[in-house]
């Protein structure tokens, strides 16, 4: 097992290398640079800036320089937030995004999973139709619509929850962004769980469990759900990577200092190092969560073996 994990992690290095290379040259192809403002800077100032940030050197040299620093886990200075390095920016924002994403993920799994199981047990009955209709709504309504509505109702009209701000991650501040993030995930998880649960409940081994007088809990949870959760797990890998690396919309609407905003800000400001940093972070999360999913699979299903 350890050998498998090590192999996968080592195998990720060429992947990340490729991603870094492609995105490094892609962002350089985009017209403009980090210091091109509406009112151009003086030539002398520009020259100095370019020199400090090595932008006057040939592109391949900049690339090698960047590779060297990334290999040492140093993502370099930010071109836009002049007083910060990318590492400093991420150290502040990433934990916030992870906390938000992880909470939303757990909420999606528990609520979505429960709804899915309930719907499957009441297949083609009113409960089932209600849950599935709600799930369809959850998937179709975009979060930039959900967020303002929730803020308006719960924050402005009822005044129960703050409309925005992070406030050091206080519970009341977390509720709205987490719910907004989780809603579409709840919907997807519920649909997936329902589908695989219906199949599992019809399977022969579940019939065996019923024929041997096991309680409904044992039949549903122990024998049906464990197998039915597998497709959900494989969905949650990429979903978790996306959630944990922050959401531009939710962070912007609720004014949360997470990492999601940097995607857009970095790209718009041609902040080369910031864009590269976010790309690398997302790539790492995707690779990591795919690995976690595969390990979870092996844990849940003894037929899957890595050795």
């Amino acid at each position, binding site marked *: 097992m350890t050998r498998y994990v090590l192999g996968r992690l080592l195998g990720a290095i060429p992947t990340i290398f490729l991603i870094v290379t492609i995105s490094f040259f892609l962002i350089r192809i985009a017209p403009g640079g980090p210091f091109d403002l509406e009112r151009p800077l003086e030539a002398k100032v520009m020259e100095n800036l370019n020199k400090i940030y090595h932008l006057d050197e040939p592109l391949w040299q900049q690339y090698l320089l960047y590779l060297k620093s990334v290999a040492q886990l140093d993502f370099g200075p930010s071109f836009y937030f002049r007083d910060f390095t990318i590492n400093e920016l991420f150290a502040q924002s990433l934990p916030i995004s992870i906390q938000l994403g992880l909470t939303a993920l757990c909420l999606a799994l528990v609520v979505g999973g429960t709804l899915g199981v309930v719907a499957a047990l009441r297949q083609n009955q009113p409960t089932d139709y209600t849950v599935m209709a709600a799930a369809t709504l959850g998937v179709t309504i975009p979060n930039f619509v959900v967020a303002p509505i929730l803020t308006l109702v719960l924050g402005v009209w009822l005044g129960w929850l703050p409309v925005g701000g992070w406030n050091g991650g206080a519970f009341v501040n977390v509720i709205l962004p987490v719910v907004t993030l989780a809603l579409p995930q709840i919907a997807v998880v519920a649909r997936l769980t329902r589908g695989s649960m219906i199949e599992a409940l019809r399977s022969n081994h579940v019939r065996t469990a*019923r024929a041997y007088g096991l*309680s409904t809990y044992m039949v549903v949870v122990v024998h049906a759900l464990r197998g039915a959760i597998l497709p959900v797990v494989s969905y949650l890998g990429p979903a978790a990577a996306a959630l944990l690396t922050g959401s531009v919309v939710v962070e912007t609407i609720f004014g949360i200092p997470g990492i999601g905003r940097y995607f857009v800000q970095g790209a718009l400001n041609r902040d080369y190092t910031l864009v590269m940093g976010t790309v690398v972070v997302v790539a790492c999360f995707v690779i990591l969560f795919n690995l976690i999913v595969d390990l979870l699979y092996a844990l849940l299903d003894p037929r899957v073996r890595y050795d």
Partner: protein
Amino acid sequence: MTSTNAPVLDIQNLTVDFDTPTGTIAAVRGVDMHVGAGETVAIVGESGSGKSQAMMAAMGLLAANGRAGGRVTYDGADLLNLPLAKLNTLRGRKITMIFQEPMTSLDPLYTIGRQLAEPMVVHGGLSWKAAKTRALELLKLVNIPDPDRKIKAYPYEMSGGQRQRVMIAMALANDPDVLIADEPTTALDVTTQAQILQLLADLQKRLGMAVMFITHDLGIVRRIADRVYVMKSGDVVESGETDRIFTSPEHPYTRMLLDAEPTGAKPPVPAASPPLLEAQKVGVAFSVDAGLFKPRHELKAVDGVSFALRRGQTLGIVGESGSGKSTLGRAVLNLLPATGRVVYNGDVISGKSRAHMQALRRHLQLVFQDPFGSLSPRLTVGQIVSEGLLVHEPQLSAADRDARACQALEEVALDPAMRNRYPHEFSGGQRQRIAIARTMVLKPDLVVLDEPTSALDRTIQKQIVELLRDLQAAHELTYLFISHDLAVVRALADTVMVMKQGKVIEAGPTDVIFQSPRDDYTRELIGAAMLTQSQMMATG
């Protein structure tokens, strides 16, 4: 054993209805059955006769759209109206069940030991530890090899026969009064089937439970049952002592079932008949586990098999699953990379390119086992049957192709008017006829028939056997007939080849093989097949 003792399980006027979008379907229409302690009762019928659904209803295992009516009495309680919690104290404790599908009836995610222990913990109040100890005893009781290791195994690590033994162990765990066995041996090889039946009989004698045995195989019924219920379209059409049913059946349907055992033998071909196909030392090897650090391991699926066939002959290839008989059939047709030499009609075809084979393909045809999976669901029957003509006789006009399809369908006794329908509208037997028509339209010389009757009921099987016989006589066809069903092979083949683990164990004329087999394995196969005397002695 008598049928006069008080019934343990008494089924009265049981009905099962299924609500479907197109209306209610009555699967069981008021049947009366009972079984006494120590008695074995067989319920016989073809697929769709309602025999399984009757038992599912008694156990409260109907699908969500199913409704049961009538009374199923056990120990004074009506099982059909018992609240779930109460029913759960009987299911798995006093009344247990073995299912038809050993491969899927156990939960793939838990060990054998845990699944065996579960009902004992739930019903017997045992601790997990005590239940595991008892589970080990049970595995020994049902003769699982190496029980100490197998108790920690997962279902996927066991064969179908072993899994069915585990199911039997599970059924016996709480010392039940009634055991319902729903076609427990249908999915198993004949030798495994014989072992499982023997095991069930021994255990019944020792533990004295009542057994309700659902099957479509009359050979089994004759061997194990005290009494028989014959079911057709949801009704019991006849019931009585086994001997009486077999010697003087009253209902025409029962007689038809009894007659459905394939009989007769193939007339020999004239000695002057030219050789058509010769195989010399055909071998197929698959490489397994060619991992980075593991040496390549070769599995010899077919190992040096030779045979010769003259035009009009039938070679029956017999063996259990995994014996390499299907692989051999494909290797002979050059559909798999194989070693050795295959000569068809004086032309060496082994190792020849696709392009070279293309012209010969029309003469070398194949019919598959699964009539449900081998026809494209998106083509009409007419398109399916005439598709080969597009390749092999491209000069034909659409009208000509259609005419040829009609002709082929008539030949397999299907109404050509049905050629515009889709496969799902046909029954299993009809689909197999379509598959045969698809090969016949090309007027082949050699047809490899890979278990063409295995998925069908006995009465349908008999019709297909007759059809194959007629087609062979009419067109001088040569058959390579692959089957694990010795009764069918006995009725169709000139020569028989017995295969085991890729090798030929024994080969020879059909009469000789069946009446005086030399090899122990052949004897075991024939014994396990439970052929009737008339089948054993049948001569052309």
